[in-house]
């Protein structure tokens, strides 16, 4: 559709999920084949905005996620484009068999906008934290996995998902995100990292709520340490932007990834796979939730606790820079 005109002002007034709900309503105006589904979380996930506007095209399955994703599959088989929203943990785990077999395997046009991801529902407790979904979902063939940095990028991702054939998983947070983008008018492309800061001393690759933290960390590293960090918003985890990663390896030789997700299987693993397969040398560190079930608390406190906030990134970058790393000027001979 294009032509989105959301700005920082909108993200001041609207939570990330509300941005999604608004964009979905706009899409729904133009595309009658869009239908919405939720499992008793229409309000929480903000797909309820679509439900209010298009009651005949919205289906609440009650607390029955497996049923919901299979129904979406049946609808997509008949030419509709279902947008399905529940919490990330219920999308990636409770209904995984249905997501796998009924949607991804059959490569159907179902868009899953999963909310309350990572530690963003921190006070709800560990059962509601979702720190495994990127690992799970990126192993589903046919599926694209997007983790927008803020409300503005969510708006772009939702439109991008509609314009992309096949299943898409968009992972967003509960509540408001720190603002990264001023408006929707920037070069958002699924599968292409967006460079937010330039630098050749190291690259910080982040996704989701960690993108803002990465920018703030880069500012401190620049002013205090004199380090110029490149910051990449790797909003698409799958397909990952190999080109941007290899360019960063080549030009900065130090990479640190940051994500609100278990360090196993998520953004860091995806980036690490590209580096290892390239055969090029690189100092590399993954920041995220260690292999543990997370503690309870406010999102921002938990990000600090797991060192994926600004201070955590700065400290870890300093350790990484301090590491012995034998640089080889002859890049081309590495295998």
């Amino acid at each position, binding site marked *: 559709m294009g032509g989105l005109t959301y700005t920082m002002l909108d993200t001041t007034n609207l939570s990330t999920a509300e941005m999604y709900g608004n964009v979905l309503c706009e899409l729904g105006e133009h595309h009658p084949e869009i239908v919405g589904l939720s499992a008793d979380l229409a309000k929480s996930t903000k797909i309820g905005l679509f439900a209010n506007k298009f009651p005949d095209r919205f*289906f609440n399955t009650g607390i029955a996620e*497996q049923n919901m994703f*299979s129904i979406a*599959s*049946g*609808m997509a*088989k008949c030419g509709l484009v279902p947008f399905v929203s529940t919490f990330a943990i219920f999308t990636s785990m409770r209904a995984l068999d*249905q997501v796998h077999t009924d949607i991804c395997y059959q490569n159907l046009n179902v868009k899953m906008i999963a909310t309350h991801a990572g530690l963003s529902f921190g006070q709800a407790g560990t059962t509601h934290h979702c720190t495994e979904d990127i690992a799970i979902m990126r192993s589903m063939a046919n599926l694209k996995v997007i983790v927008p940095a803020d409300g503005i990028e969510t708006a772009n991702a939702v439109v991008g998902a509609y314009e992309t054939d096949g299943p898409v998983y968009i992972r967003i947070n509960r509540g408001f995100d720190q603002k990264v983008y001023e408006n929707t008018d920037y070069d958002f492309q699924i599968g292409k990292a967006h460079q937010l800061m330039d630098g050749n001393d190291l690259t910080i690759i982040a996704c989701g709520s960690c993108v803002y933290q990465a920018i703030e960390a880069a500012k401190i590293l620049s002013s205090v340490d004199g380090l110029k960090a490149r910051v990449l918003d790797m909003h698409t985890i799958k397909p990952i932007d190999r080109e941007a990663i290899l360019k960063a390896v080549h030009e900065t030789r130090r990479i640190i990834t940051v994500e609100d997700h278990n360090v196993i299987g998520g953004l860091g693993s995806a980036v690490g796979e590209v580096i290892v397969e390239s055969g090029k040398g690189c100092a590399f560190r993954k920041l995220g939730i260690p292999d543990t079930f997370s503690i309870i608390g406010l999102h921002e406190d938990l990000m600090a606790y797991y060192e994926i906030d600004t201070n955590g990134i700065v400290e870890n970058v300093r350790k990484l820079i301090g590491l012995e790393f034998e640089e080889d000027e002859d890049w081309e001979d590495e295998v």
Partner: protein
Amino acid sequence: MPLTDIELLNLEKKAHELRNLCVDTVVWAGSGHIGGSLSAMDILTILYYKYLNIDPSKPLWEDRDRFILSKGHVGVGFAPVLADKGYIDKEDLKEYNHTGSKLGMHLDSNKVPGVDASTGSLGHGLPIAVGMALAARINKKGYRTFCLLGDGECDEGSVWEAAMSATHYKVTNLITIVDRNRCMIDGPTEDVMALEPFAKKWEAFGFIVKEVNGHSFKELSEAIEYAITEDKAPVVIIANTIKGCGIDFMADNYKWHYGGLNSEKITQSKDSLEKYYQKRVKGA
């Protein structure tokens, strides 16, 4: 319209052919889910040769009736039907389960024309069918969606989630049939996980229940005619069947959920099917 005598005899003949072709397919494949294929064969026959509004030359025709084989493991019974209808070549059956074949144990809508959804993970079919039936409503289409469930798979919670949705959204363009053969892999359904009172469960979920002999075309036909015209609530047809129906040593024996046939068993199976057919035709 009630079945005419000629229709009835034609259906008997077709079901007999398909049972034989199912046995052949099991032989070509090396093994297969023969018990549940034979229990479902009369249901598949009456749907494909009497009721489904389909065009095998246009498997993706938008207005076609949909059929979801929720008990997806009985591909070895479903594929002969699709081959006989002309969706696939009968020669393809000889490659069943072979490496590189488009026909695997669970038929796949990505690979096999005429298969409306890839099933096999149990408990998925009914909710997919509900989605298709709702899509007909949204898209203002007149097609019907038929879903054939195994009774054992009704242990899955997602079946009942879908049942709730079907009545909540009053999805009366959906026709659900349960192949109630009372057997599952590990034993009789009532020993492994009791389903009774089965009909009352469906009724409690808001369905109109028609219980029939799933090997009587007359009873199946009456129930399907009723389900098609009923518009107050979705209808489920509980078709009481016999696992391994038509082959004496398999009949009602849960151990024939899955198996292979040696040459002796092939001969026995064919003889038994012939006797069974003659008996049915006499009674028809």
